[in-house]
């Protein structure tokens, strides 16, 4: 079964773990007033303390390091595991870029199509990063979705129709931008 076949039943999930703490001073490392989104493939994962990182490789070959806000210990307690976002997953990831030219950022949300633990699932993460609260669409996602089954705390699955509703209501912001993985349709 290919991704194309799975899309008609594409699901969305929302993984939530709250954290504002960081091993480093957030403002010193990140441009808190900027937002960036990158589409690509997960090519490496380092699930570590004080922060975990996913390497996301874009189609034109640029490698990005995307940092989790919370500690790995906190993520693990919330049910996160290596299987939550496997190598090879096609994702659209959004967050706050680091100062300077290095391709480093801290993610606030991730949209992902399989292969995940539930391979026909789309994953969205809505984080409270830097103490600024969760994205404004966070509660709406929970209203429209159902708890997902991957063991991750506060994970919600939302249908493709619900995703369209969210796009209608919130526009193309972050992971709600018109993300359709290549080859999906």
């Amino acid at each position, binding site marked *: 079964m290919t991704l194309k076949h799975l899309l008609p039943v594409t699901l969305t999930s929302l993984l939530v773990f709250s954290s504002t703490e960081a091993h480093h001073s957030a403002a010193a490392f990140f441009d808190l007033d900027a937002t960036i989104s990158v589409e690509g493939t997960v090519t490496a994962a380092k699930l*570590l303390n004080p922060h975990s*990182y996913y390497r996301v490789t874009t189609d034109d070959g640029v490698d990005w*390091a995307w940092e989790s806000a919370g500690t790995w210990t906190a993520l693990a307690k919330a049910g996160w595991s290596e299987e939550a976002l496997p190598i090879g997953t096609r994702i659209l990831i959004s967050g706050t870029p680091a100062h300077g030219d290095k391709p480093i950022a801290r993610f606030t949300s991730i949209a992902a199509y399989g292969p995940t633990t539930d391979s026909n699932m789309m994953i969205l993460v809505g984080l409270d990063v830097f103490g600024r609260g969760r994205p404004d669409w966070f509660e709406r996602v929970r209203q429209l979705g159902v708890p997902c089954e991957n063991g991750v705390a506060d994970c919600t699955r939302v249908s493709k129709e619900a995703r369209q509703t969210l796009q209608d209501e919130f526009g193309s912001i972050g992971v709600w931008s018109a993300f359709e993985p290549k080859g999906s349709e």
Partner: protein
Amino acid sequence: MAGKLHLLVFFMGSVITGMPLIVDAQVPDISGVYRSGRANTPCGRDANMRSIPNCPVNELGLQTAATATAENDPGLECIADGLSRQFTRLPRPMEIIQTDDKVIFHYEYFDVWRVAHLDRDTAPPQTPHTLTGFSVGRWEGDTLVVETSHLLENAHTIPTSDQTTTVERYRWNADRSLLLLDVEITDPAYYDAPFRFGTAEFVPNPDDYIAQFVCTNQTDLFYGDDINSFFDDN
């Protein structure tokens, strides 16, 4: 009856001798695991510590703060925060272990242990200066008061010298749903007057526990030649 008689004798003796009468020796039970709730920052600083408005920080303190850079942030090398900086993070989760003569604080973040010694008034001679210093504690009614000295200098977030002393006050709110913390910092080297943090809140979280915290140096990612050296080496 005998107990009442003893209490009466004790009370009379206390009046005669002027010694304080301890009517209720019970102290609040604040043991347990907490997650942090509201974390107020000191001196009107914003959540990201971008400025120090309203702080009585002096020129030397500002100069010290200016030496703190992203590159020399000790956290990159898995060195835990100094106490003054730790107050701004309210590391979570936190476990409090309470005994008759000690109150022990265990923070999951960087696996930091602190002991407030209830059976001491001062630090022993030759106590070294450390990230979390030496703490003595006492109960004032329903409030645990923890006084800390012998801290290392800290330049990051809240600059504090090795002359810094801190006073923490922990107490339950009215319905015991929140453990409240007030902090005052005195540092004659870097500040013209003591200053206080706003009241912070810890939320009881009995289902949680303190997990082992294994840390990996992440300096390479931010300051190495290529981010892939970090992914390849770890």
